[in-house]
């Protein structure tokens, strides 16, 4: 079960499992955001490379446009996946 909640403008909460089956929907919902974006990952229980790729794509697009892209509240397990991917130093994770 995966959910995307728009908490307020510029703030999104992801919860559940962001796997390859949910990556396309995530891309469709977040791919249009053109302002600064903070993603609350505190309820994200799982992420695979497909989910990371979507977040990386948003990161590249927003930072290129001079907008902030921040990931917050990751559980250690989810953060570990970013670390294994070598992206914990590329993305802004708070």
């Amino acid at each position, binding site marked *: 079960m995966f959910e995307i909640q728009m908490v307020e403008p510029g703030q999104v909460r992801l919860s559940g499992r962001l*796997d390859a089956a949910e990556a396309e929907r995530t891309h469709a919902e977040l791919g249009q955001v053109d302002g600064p974006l903070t993603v609350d990952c505190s309820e994200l229980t799982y992420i695979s490379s497909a989910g990371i790729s979507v977040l990386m794509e948003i990161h590249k697009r927003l930072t290129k446009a001079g907008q902030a892209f921040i990931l917050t509240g990751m559980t250690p397990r989810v953060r570990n996946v970013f670390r294994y991917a070598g992206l914990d130093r590329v993305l802004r994770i708070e």
Partner: protein
Amino acid sequence: LKVAWANPLGAGSIIRLAAWGGEDMRLELAGPWSRGPVRETAMTERRFRRNFESLASIVAFVNEFFAAHGIRAEQANDVNLIIEELFTNMVKYSRESREDVAVGLEWNAPVITLKLEDFGVEPFDVTQPPPIDAAAKPGGLGLQLVQRMAESLDYRWANRVSTITATKRLDV
């Protein structure tokens, strides 16, 4: 059932089969050549349609296996991740096949062995080192994750069947 003997049995060998049956089969061999019973836990295997929608069924399969073997559920994340990356790789890059993919699990505490078999496909060796800019290449990031998370990773291809075997040590 196929039984392959690594060493021929000597004269007078006694084989006792016990606790046999069900999907999660256990084969126990005991004989005068061993100091005690030798236990082999057979792989629990299931087949899944080659599409991303199968991921939910695979997660359910893994959770069921963990529960059946008394493995803590929070340990399943890494196992699910390794399987997802290998499975989606097969779905995305072995488009010539329409066969289901077989996923097998075997528990020999504290190591879990995962086996994925892809039928009717060309070779795709997942043990090759990922490119430097892994995320930019097909399957690169996923395979990089698998290679870092699994303790071992083996790839074989024969008769148009790709077989990937990975092991992962769990905290028990």
